């Protein structure tokens, strides 16, 4: 019997593991792995498989904005309608309803500060129900998606320890 949490933790850390790899690590059969992964996908617990990329290294002009949005909820639909409209933009990588001083946190990735400013002006500020926005730009990434940038991975252990 596969422990779903153990399976999910495993592929969360390494989406490229083959079914055979997973089976060996968990001590189960490959068929079971295939069956359980299908179940988790059907249940929309597994939503997809992505790659962690250090875009700053590949594209020097990459830029990320975190946009706080305050809104008046639309009658009957709460915050969902505005959130849905904003989320449908491909360059919006995340959108969260927040507690505290603002309502939505929108993470938006594009080429430059100007592009992000344009998006905020043209696509967010103009939405019905949006009261105000505050935009923050990421200056440097220290850790993202659980991965630390710039960590040495040297093994300083002695050659043989009995």
């Amino acid at each position, binding site marked *: 019997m596969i422990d779903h949490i153990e399976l999910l933790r*495993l592929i969360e850390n390494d989406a490229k593991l083959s079914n055979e790899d997973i089976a*060996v*690590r968990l001590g189960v059969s490959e068929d079971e792995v295939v069956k359980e992964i299908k179940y988790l996908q059907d249940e929309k617990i597994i939503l997809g498989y992505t790659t962690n990329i250090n875009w700053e290294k590949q594209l020097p002009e990459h830029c990320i904005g975190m946009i706080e949005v305050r809104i008046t909820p639309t009658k009957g639909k709460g915050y969902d309608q505005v959130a849905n409209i904003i989320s449908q933009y491909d360059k919006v990588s995340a959108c969260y309803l927040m507690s505290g001083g603002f309502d939505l946190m929108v993470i938006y990735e594009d080429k430059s500060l100007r592009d992000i400013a344009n998006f905020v002006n043209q696509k967010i500020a103009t939405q019905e129900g949006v009261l105000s926005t505050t935009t923050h730009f990421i200056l440097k990434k220290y850790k993202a998606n659980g991965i630390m940038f710039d960590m040495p991975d040297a*093994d300083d*252990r*002695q050659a*043989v*320890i*009995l």
Partner: protein
Amino acid sequence: MSDYSNKISDVVNNVPPSAIRRFFDLANEMKGNVISLSIGEPDFVTPWSIREAGINSLREGYTHYSPNSGYIEARQAISNYISRRYGVTYSPKNEILITVGGSEGLDLVARALINPGDEVIIVEPCFVAYKATVMFAHGVPVVVSTKEENDYKLLPEELEAAITDKTKYLILGYPSNPTGAIMTHDELAKIRDVLVRHPEIIVISDELYCELNYLSDKPASLIQFPELRDRVIMINGFSKSYAMTGWRIGYSVGPAPIIAAMTKIHQYCIMSSPSMAQFAIIDAAENGDSCIEEMRNEYNHRRRVLLKGLADAGLKCFTPYGAFYAFPSIEGLGLRSDEFCERFLLEKKVAIVPGNAFGECGEGHVRISYAASIDDIKEAVVRMKDFVDSLKKG
């Protein structure tokens, strides 16, 4: 003064150097260009929260000696840990001593208990310090050789046969370095039954690997038998469970008079264990259960990958359920274990350890540590298969 042999004491001269000195030197020379599955310590770095606790103690100026037996807060944290994990209570006041690694505990026990000529039963294959500490303390090691067909567990009849009227103590190390063997509660109960018939014998239980047990999520130990309460000493520490080898903190728990005798030696020879490290282990013992569990899970995955790879390579290996070692057999391949490891290192650039380093009965086997990345383990077993195939072809 060029001949030192008559200057060095006889006991020290009489402890043989490690059986694999040559192999050691070779592996050290080649380090960096080889895959190392020869290392008896975690590859993980100590969890950050524990490291930070150590750093904070420096910031706050705790740079002095601690009380001889350790800060009371650290002993209390250990006491809480033991009652949480083992379900038994030891008083932080006089039944727990904080040592410089489990290693110091092994030494203190030997010096506190042994009169010259006393016998100590050692269950091989085992960690190399057991025999040496007994010999340094003028004791006589009596070796019981456990067998692969018994999954390297100590059988009650094997113990019974080794006992004489000179036996002072028995030292048991499960989960085992180097075999990865464990003993369950029921198996230990049979050892208890033998010991109940021999009330003079003290038992030392080295449980450095207690948290690395892949069959049970709670440790099984002789300290859990009330009948033995007045003569079991548990040697334990933070090195393996919490990936804290370099911090050098261990502890001994047992009956107050024995702990007092050990503390007497510790007080004169060591004074106190490192203060900064004691602050770190308070955090480990209080908040570290989830770190232990994550690391155990990861080791368990590696264990399965290694065992599968060894089977694919055609090496017979009993299934280890503890520590982070496998101890496959190389019998029938025509090489002694030290020759096997030396050639494997030179020809395939993978370091593993000859079984005879852990006692004569370890001959015919090699110790493979899976405290290494899965990628390294996978690559190493592929090379192992090539190597074994080439030996079989002759």
